């Protein structure tokens, strides 16, 4: 197990290195002069030179790279061009909001997807199945930028139950979490249904039934745990996307998280902040996927012990 953890940690570090390198190069890959992009076409040459110097862009590339990693290792992400505050501070302010939203969205997704997928698989071909899968089709088809406003229209404007936007009261979390969660739930429930149907046809399910176990034990104890394995892989990928996809949802609900910060900073041409946000979102991806692998290993002994026996 320790060996597995070390290997997993090592490969996560490798990916992180690659991602950070790409983020560093981002600014150099932009066509034209990045300083001009940041300051606008009408900027003064003197201002450009000053900014270029401030960003260290007048240095040779390898020096910039060394400098970048030196700062990165001491968690120094530089300074915002817009607010003149350290970026680390800004990001840390926004991070809890995004995490809160992601966790809430994930909970909604699982609470919807697991029962929905299970019901659909165990009542295959009947009304429940058709209903559940239609719901999931709708969930997949409606993009977040439409789902969000629809929910606001219904629950905030017509019914007046929930706040329209912001993060001033706990109830404000409900709508953005629902928006994020339903989209995820739609995909997960489909995956779970397919995977559960396959597992229910396996020999060991027949064994479980031949033991005289109740159908509930057969499904929850024997089938579901096996069926969740591929779902967890998908969840890992989707959760990463959830962090990135939150950009849209956070914008719709003016949710003060990393996504909104990214959008704001792009508008303000606050390049160092955008860079930090992209880095953070990628970091989220890597961490989530590493965690997924660990959960997978926890659930599946064949991975935990290494399938050397074959």
């Amino acid at each position, binding site marked *: 197990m320790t060996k597995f953890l070390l290997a997993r940690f090592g490969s996560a570090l490798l990916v992180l290195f690659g991602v950070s390198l790409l983020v560093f190069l981002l600014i150099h890959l932009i066509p034209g002069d990045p300083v001009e992009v940041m300051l606008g076409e009408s900027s003064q040459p003197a201002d450009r030179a000053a900014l270029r110097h401030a960003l260290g862009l007048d240095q040779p590339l390898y020096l910039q790279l060394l400098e970048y990693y030196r700062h990165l290792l001491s968690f120094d992400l530089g300074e915002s061009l817009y607010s003149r505050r350290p970026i680390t501070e800004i990001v840390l302010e926004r991070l809890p909001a995004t995490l809160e939203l992601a966790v809430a969205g994930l909970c909604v997704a699982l609470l919807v997807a697991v029962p929905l997928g299970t019901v659909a698989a165990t009542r295959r071909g009947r009304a429940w199945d058709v209903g559940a899968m239609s719901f999931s089709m709708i969930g997949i088809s409606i993009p977040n930028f439409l789902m969000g406003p629809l929910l606001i229209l219904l629950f905030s404007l017509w019914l007046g139950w929930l706040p329209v936007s912001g993060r001033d009261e706990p109830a404000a979390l409900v709508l953005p979490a629902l928006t994020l969660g339903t989209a995820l739930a739609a995909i997960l429930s489909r995956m779970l249904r397919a995977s559960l149907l396959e597992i229910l046809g396996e020999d060991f399910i*027949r064994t479980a039934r031949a033991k*005289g176990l109740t159908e509930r034990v057969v499904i929850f104890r024997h089938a579901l745990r096996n069926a969740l394995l591929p779902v967890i892989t998908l969840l890992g990928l989707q959760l990463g996307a959830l962090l990135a996809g939150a950009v849209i949802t956070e914008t719709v609900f003016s949710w003060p998280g990393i996504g909104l910060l990214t959008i704001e900073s792009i508008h303000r041409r606050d390049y160092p902040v955008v860079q930090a946000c992209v880095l953070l979102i990628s970091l989220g991806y890597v961490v989530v996927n590493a965690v997924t692998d660990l959960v997978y290993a926890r659930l599946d002994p064949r991975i935990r*012990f290494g399938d050397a026996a074959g």
Partner: protein
Amino acid sequence: MNEPLLRVEGLRTRFETRGGVLHPVDDVDFDIRRGETFTLLGESGCGKSMTALSIMRLIPAPAGRIVAGRVLLGGEDLLSLPEAAMRRVRGKRVAMIFQEPMTSLNPVLTIGEQIAESVRRHRGLKGAAATRVVLELLDAVGIADPEQRQREYPHQLSGGMKQRVMIAIALAGEPDLLIADEPTTALDVTIQAQVLALLRRLQRERGMAILLITHDLGVVSEMADQVAVMYAGQIVEQSARAPFFAAPGHPYSRKLFESLPEIEKRAQPLAVIPGAVPSLARAFTACRFADRCDFAWQTCREVVPRWIRVSDAQAARCHLLDAEAIQQAPEHAPRPPAHLAQRQRTPAPVAPLLEVDGLKVHFPIRHGLLKRTVGQVYAVDDVSFAIGRGRTFALVGESGCGKTTIGKSILQLIRPTAGSVRFDGEELTTLHGERLRRRRSDFQIIFQDPFSSMNPRMLVGDIVEEGMRALGLEPDPARRRARVEALLDQVGLPRDALRRYPHEFSGGQRQRICIARALAVNPRLLVCDEPTSALDISVQAQILNLLQRLQDEMGLSYLFITHNLSVVAYLADEVAVMYLGRIVEHGTVDEVLGNPRHPYTQALLSAIPVIDPSARREVIRLEGDLPSPARPPSGCHFHIRCPHATPQCRTHYPAVTRLGASHTVRCFLYEADDAAEAGC
């Protein structure tokens, strides 16, 4: 007082499929008495497993449904019980084990937990008390170190161990009846012998009745008290064991015996059952076997035969046994079998076609992030043999012994690590690219599973033709087509097969297509990798006959890879027995099978269930499983399971000892003899 434990009456199960409504179980009756072994014998698709699942009420719904009959367990009709009450019967009074121990256990739960689940459910025990029973059960099924094993997961156990665990689960409820559905079919023969012995011991100790489902006459002979033969959804013969094996009553039962490959039948083709099993979708108004029966007459095609008692202990559904019906039978001799031509054995020729010398195939085991090589699997370890022109050479061994790897490395589908493979004098291991590709027309392969070895989206005609096209053997399309048609004739398939897809054919027919595909490029050597082990006995006979005929007609050489020694006895000229990557004994079939000298060969031969009780030998029970070829034991690989092992065996690998003109063995037991003979 003498009431049976289980009485099945008029059981009928229907199954809805896309092809229509089937009745895989169609009016089945039988009784099982307490403590006896009742075997249900039949070929695939005859409804024997469905009968078992119907008794357990585990027919997959909603497609399958029991539509008529009664299943009385101790007088209580299981079919009328509510589902909740039925669940208290399953696993408690009737338990079941299945064919595939590999997939019948839940991969994510420990085996201790999977047994404990049944203990908790049926004995109402919890915690430490349940764990104690689990350990007792593991001990009862002969699993060493139960304390450690109960914490392991299924993938950490071998196939034989998994089947033992399945049996432990079944025993947890202390059932009166154990249904065993082909419990040893997926296991190697030495492991099969272990599991059958275990079942017999448990039955004796616990007075449990066993319903044993099998297709293997040998297993029936070793295990059964009562035999029922099933054909196309019905039981056609029921008998006590002894009269059944002395004189099977139904023509179908007789055919099953005749189509078994055996050494005595070497000189002649095996008996085959013409045609195929009738579709269960149709309603039967006559004898189900009439169309394939050598003795059928008018009555058989018009009237459903009734049960006729041959003796107190034997009965069959056949008009032949009916004194009234037989009156109307025309005076006729049974139809003679298609061809009874005696085979001429090819004499051993001068230069061999294929010579394998010092062949080694090692696979690296890679581990970790950088895929370092941390060890080797010694799949094939220094193997040498030669195959003569027009001769059949058999490689025998249990799964994992490396026999398939040898086949593939001869064809250069896997490149050998070391050694030489010379075909007609030309070294193949150094051939590459285009030159090797050109040479491929000389050697072809037929695989074990005819279902997965053909591209399902290609027409049969294209499959057969592809090799000719790829090697440019017949550039003219019309002539190529004609040749494909000739090939289909040759392997006994209708010509319209050309424009059909593989899934439209039965297993035996598909294997014929694979043979036609291999023959298309005019090979001289055919590697047959377990070509009949996925097939039923009667279909196996057809394929073996076909291979024999093709060899006679075309002078083909066969490398026959198999675990089935009866097939070897029937078909092969020479045989090599493999254990863990090495050949331990080698000689002609008469030498090796008639006078086995290596302890492993002796154990392997004794483990095969034999039909004739008088010919039954003492089973040399091998303990334990085949070791992993990644960590082979030192010295002679067999020493840890060998009853004759000496300290020398643990440290040194014995050299080849010559016992006769062509009989060689690698065992220290014979080295001294050899030396003594040499001294004389």
